[in-house]
């Protein structure tokens, strides 16, 4: 009548039965459970219930990361990055470190100015420790007009004038420290309004008043000239200024003094370069440090360091590019190439359909063996669908392009024949069941199983047969088009009008050497097309191959 009473008898657990359902038992133990299942209906009911209740878990909604997840994670990484790249202990306030370029530095950096003051170095020399030893000086003496300058005071430690900042920027000294996220428009404006605590402000005022009049005047000029700059220029200089200030803030005291005690901007600049160079060398990985030590002459050493630097710069550029592309771009005109050209975007979809055997409109078959022969694995298919959706819905064009490029490389395509169907079946001429049987060693596996992965798929199946053929005495006729005249019309036209006219004599001879051989001839065609930055219709991703590479390849230049 009623289903099994759900309460007490359910609680003794059944490790063997459940392990059996999970496919975790060996053959012997499985047989034991299967016997029980066959003999006892109660066990069968129980097994069914275990299975069904587990299936109910599928009703749980699957949380998906929000579209900004990667960006937010990478942004949170910035403090980690900058602390780990410098071997100096970081200020205890690291927890409050803003990840973006925002104007909350003043509080954080206050101590840097204070320390410099106590240390009595450079232009802070006169101040001694006055603000700390005595009650704050009468701040009423100070001019309210200086308040904005005082707000930014901690940023100006170790800065003489605007020219000094321009020099730092032009020299690219702090290029690496400026975070790519800082380039996101809007962050500065949005963050400009936060309050500085009264105590901090008092300290800053005291600090400012403790400077000699000449330095006070110098700071006023610096603040004024900086703020008079055109917005774009100003924000560019500010980014250098902030990177510099944070860097200075984190230096060990002795090193900081080395910079602050310089008597003029020129010397200070030299000191900054010196310290940066030292830090950079110290931060090199052990293997490179070792390599550097083994270099004998000064020239070789300089050369070695220069090359390292160049590689690092190239890598940084790529990182910035990647990061830039990773930002979602929703607006139509900011779609990445090739998706921003309707015709090209359509050809890409066509390539996905024919080259990968994927219909993006179809839901993914959960069982993994759909009727249409898809050349991608289930994981790849899911990845592709997800990237496609993320690109068209959220603007993640970069990851979509990178995904396509990777898939196209993992599943290279070859041009289809102009006449007849491409070879994808065992009994399709020039093959026959007999020929294929002769090619395959008799290992007890049925032919459909033997070719399960490639059957029905072009050019996978033909390639597999060609490989078997090359190891046998069979010597089959070519399994695909391998001379002009045998390809589809678009490829023929492409060869005649685009590729062949561009080939040199040597290249043409080499190509003709492969005439009549499959897959050698079409492969040679594709290689030549790549070399000429052309795309063979239907056999390569549409659009210039070089552009695909430049835009979507994710390997770093250090190899």
């Amino acid at each position: 009548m009623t289903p099994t009473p759900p309460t007490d008898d359910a609680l003794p657990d059944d490790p063997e039965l459940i392990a059996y359902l999970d496919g975790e038992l060996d053959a012997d133990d499985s047989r034991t459970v299967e016997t029980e299942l066959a003999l006892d209906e109660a066990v069968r009911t129980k097994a069914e219930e275990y299975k069904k209740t587990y299936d109910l878990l599928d009703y749980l909604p699957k949380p998906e990361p929000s579209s900004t997840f990667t960006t937010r994670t990478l942004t949170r990484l910035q403090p980690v990055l900058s602390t780990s790249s410098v071997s100096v202990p970081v200020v205890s306030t690291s927890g409050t470190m803003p990840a973006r370029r925002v104007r909350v530095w003043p509080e954080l950096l206050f101590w840097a100015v204070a320390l410099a003051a106590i240390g009595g170095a450079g232009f802070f020399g006169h101040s001694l420790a006055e603000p700390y030893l005595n009650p704050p000086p009468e701040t009423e003496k100070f001019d309210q007009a200086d308040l904005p300058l005082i707000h930014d005071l901690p940023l100006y430690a170790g800065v003489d004038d605007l020219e000094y900042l321009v020099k730092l920027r032009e020299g690219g000294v702090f290029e690496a420290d400026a975070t790519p996220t800082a380039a996101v428009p809007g962050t500065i404006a949005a963050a400009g309004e936060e309050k500085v605590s009264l105590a901090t402000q008092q300290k800053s005022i005291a600090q400012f008043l403790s400077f000699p009049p000449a330095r006070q005047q110098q700071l006023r000029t610096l603040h004024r000239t900086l703020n008079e700059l055109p917005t774009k220029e100003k924000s560019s200089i500010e980014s250098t200024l902030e990177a510099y200030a944070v860097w200075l803030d984190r230096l060990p005291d002795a090193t900081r003094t080395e910079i602050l005690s310089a008597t003029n901007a020129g010397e200070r600049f030299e000191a900054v370069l010196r310290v940066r160079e030292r830090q950079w060398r110290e931060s090199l990985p052990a293997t490179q440090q070792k390599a550097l030590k083994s270099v004998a002459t000064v020239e070789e050493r300089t050369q070695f360091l220069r090359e390292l630097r160049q590689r690092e710069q190239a890598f940084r550029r790529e990182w910035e590019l990647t990061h830039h592309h990773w930002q979602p771009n929703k607006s139509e005109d900011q779609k990445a190439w090739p998706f921003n050209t309707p015709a090209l975007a359509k050809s890409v979809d066509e390539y996905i359909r024919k080259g990968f055997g994927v219909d993006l409109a179809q839901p993914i078959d959960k069982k993994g063996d759909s009727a249409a022969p898809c050349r991608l694995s289930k994981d790849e298919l899911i990845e592709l669908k997800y990237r496609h959706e993320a690109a068209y819905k959220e603007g993640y064009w970069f990851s979509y392009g990178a995904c396509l490029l990777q898939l196209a490389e993992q599943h290279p395509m070859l041009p289809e024949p102009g006449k007849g169907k491409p070879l994808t079946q065992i009994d399709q001429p020039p093959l026959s069941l007999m020929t294929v049987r002769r090619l395959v060693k008799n290992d007890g596996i049925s032919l459909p199983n033997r070719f399960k992965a490639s059957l029905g798929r072009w050019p996978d199946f033909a390639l597999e047969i060609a490989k078997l053929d090359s190891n046998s005495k069979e010597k089959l006729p070519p399994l695909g088009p391998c001379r002009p005249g045998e390809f589809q019309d678009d490829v023929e036209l492409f060869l005649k009008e685009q590729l062949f006219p561009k080939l040199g004599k040597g290249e043409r001879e080499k190509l003709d050497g492969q005439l009549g051989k499959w897959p050698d001839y079409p492969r040679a065609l594709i290689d030549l097309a790549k070399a000429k930055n052309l795309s063979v219709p239907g056999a390569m991703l549409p659009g210039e191959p070089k552009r695909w590479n430049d835009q979507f390849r994710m390997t770093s230049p250090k190899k």
Partner: protein
Amino acid sequence: MMALRDPDIRLMLRVRADDQTAFAELVERYQHRLVGIMGHLVGHSTEAEDLAQEVFLRVYRTRHKYTPKAKFSTWLFTIANNLALNALRDKRRRTVLPLEVQDSNFQGFRPGETRAPDKSAPPTQHLQQEELAAVVRRALDDLNERQRVAVVLNKFEDMNYAEIADVMGLTTKGVKSLLSRARAKLRDALQPYIYMDGAAPPDAEDQEQGEMP
């Protein structure tokens, strides 16, 4: 060796060598799985994202200590397991008292017993999907933390017992008994709902034989 055949291990080796692009790629690649797992464990999407993010940051912080021994995902999920267990324990400590008061429909019921009223009066109509999801959520929440982790890895990550054992630092035998207890509890809690998702019970015809023409 196996290490280099696993593309994720190659990727992680690049992360170890301070390749930031590789790290970004890693985040892109694993975010869905991690957020999904964390979401199933804590049942709250914002919390799940925070936890997943914490996992990635920990990966980054400990990147220099990484040695390619097992599958990369095993290593990643080990970190996720530690963080999730801590978070779940914290959560339980924080919420155990209010839960007793709020969740009991009847005076004197302890949290584990709140399912009883549902079971004694199984719904007669098909449950709405959300309602069913809520019931399943509650059943999952009633498992202890380790059982929940094991179930989620097994069910949603398709991990076998040996992989779960690696991630959770247990023996395969330990996982077997953990999962069997968890499954028994789930069956106990969800058994009345099996046929509420629209599927007819196999013995429905037997039961209604007399009334059918």
